[in-house]
């Protein structure tokens, strides 16, 4: 099911003319586009937007889809990943949604894509300057777990008052001896706004820093969007004596043998036999095909 099989070619279906291009109406797109321009001008700041009801429930990527719909053009090549995989339900259905409503080309190959909508991973293959990443975000407010009031968190952002974030990380250290936050690890964008990078594993946080690609984040239920422009400093919060660290594995990918990528654990039988495979299926498949070509 995974990287061992070559990616299927996506047949290019004609656009369904019953829908406006990319589903959303033009006025909604303009509203989101204006929000995106402000988000880019104020890196890491959460811009409120008039989120629309999409033909799938909140939690399935409605925020990311609205941003994708607002930026998508006829010439774009769209890739959609869900936890790194191109072939899971969420990824397949969102890709088919835009293939049908916008008639755009889709791909599973990271370097070929111009827009990559993602749920909770950044591809292992380095991004390039003409790519836009669109993240699906469940809870955009990094301070929400500490301060439930939106009025308060907005004031804290306004006053650059982020001391509580370090308290939260410190409590991790006091309880577990290390910073136990493993995903949605808070970052500071361009030394100003503290931002939730969406629930990507902290393994992916360093890829946000000075990335040549534009990063856009959309939260459908919370109706917030934010952005990290290319070549922007993104630092993960930490302490001098407990510096930020990413996950490491003792295992290699069972399919491609990679020791550098983010690995998913698979349980193979009732005895708990483990196996580890790359979460990024395209990266894994490319390594396998390169390995075959080299033989």
């Amino acid at each position, binding site marked *: 099911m995974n990287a061992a099989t070559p990616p299927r070619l996506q047949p290019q279906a004609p656009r369904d003319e019953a829908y*406006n*291009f990319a589903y959303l109406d*033009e*006025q909604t*797109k*303009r*509203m989101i*586009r*204006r*929000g*995106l*321009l*402000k*988000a*880019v*001008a*104020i*890196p890491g*700041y959460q*811009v*409120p937007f008039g989120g629309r009801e999409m033909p799938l429930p909140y939690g399935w990527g409605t925020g990311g889809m609205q941003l994708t719909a*607002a*930026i*998508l*053009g*006829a010439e774009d090549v769209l890739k959609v990943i869900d936890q790194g995989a191109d072939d899971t339900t969420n990824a397949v259905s969102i890709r088919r949604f835009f293939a049908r409503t916008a008639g755009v080309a889709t791909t599973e190959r990271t370097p070929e894509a111009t827009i990559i909508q993602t749920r909770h991973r950044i591809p292992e293959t380095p991004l390039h300057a003409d790519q836009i990443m669109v993240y699906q975000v469940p809870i955009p407010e990094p301070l929400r777990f500490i301060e439930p009031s939106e009025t308060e968190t*907005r*004031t804290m*952002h*306004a*006053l650059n008052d982020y001391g509580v974030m370090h308290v939260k990380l410190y409590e991790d250290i006091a309880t577990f001896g290390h910073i136990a936050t493993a995903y949605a690890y808070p970052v500071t964008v*361009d030394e*100003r*706004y503290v931002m939730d990078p969406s629930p990507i594993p902290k393994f992916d946080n360093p890829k946000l820093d*000075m990335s*040549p690609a*534009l990063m856009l984040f959309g939260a459908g239920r919370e109706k917030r969007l934010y*952005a*990290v*422009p*290319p*070549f*922007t*400093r993104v630092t993960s919060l930490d302490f001098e004596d407990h510096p930020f660290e990413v996950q490491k594995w003792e295992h290699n990918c069972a399919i491609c043998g990679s020791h550098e990528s983010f690995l998913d654990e698979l349980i193979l039988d009732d005895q708990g036999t483990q196996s580890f495979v790359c979460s990024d299926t395209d990266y894994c498949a490319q390594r396998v095909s390169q390995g075959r070509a080299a033989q």
Partner: protein
Amino acid sequence: MSTSLATQSLPASLLQPAFTDPVLDAQRSFRAALRALAGPGVAQSLLAMQTPPHLEGLAAASHALCLALLDIDTPLWLAPKFDTQTIRANLTFHCGCPIVSDRQNARFALLDDSQLHDLSGFDLGNDRYPDQSCTLLVQLPSLQGGTQLAWRGPGIESKNHVSLPLQEAFWQERESRNDFPRGIDVFFVAGSELLGLPRSTQVLFKPQPSSLQPSSPQPSTGAV
């Protein structure tokens, strides 16, 4: 809305067609604007086939940005140079945007270079909602020919050298009104080109070349 009543008495002969493909041409103009703002100081060009027909007084890229970004939710302020019957009639018809005489109420403003010494009155947003600031569309004769300045900040790998033909007064105005996260975002437009200057960009003023040491050799520090 009362401001748009005036257009009802305008002759229909002033109206011109807008984008050939309203959906995709607006999307292309927006993507150029997004690229411009995400890479400050790098000029983006709109292709002739995706810009709207010529509208008297507006550069092709200004016209395209207006059609792509303005609608009933975006009150527009026009500098006197652009406050013509033709521009009013076409923008109110195609965009439906209210045209306001008060800078404070404008979400977008269309300016020429005679206005840049005074940017007072435009909404800079507030600390809680800095996104509510006004966006300036500044139409210039050219995007080159001025003093070369180095730009730095988000969207710029190390430094971008930009020589917009602007007076010192503009930079002082911008400096005095930029209190990050509050501030002004600008699109400079000339012909079919546009160039973004978001509030996050720092503009470095090099020492004047009139000083004794020659300032020509660029320190090419590749360090990122």
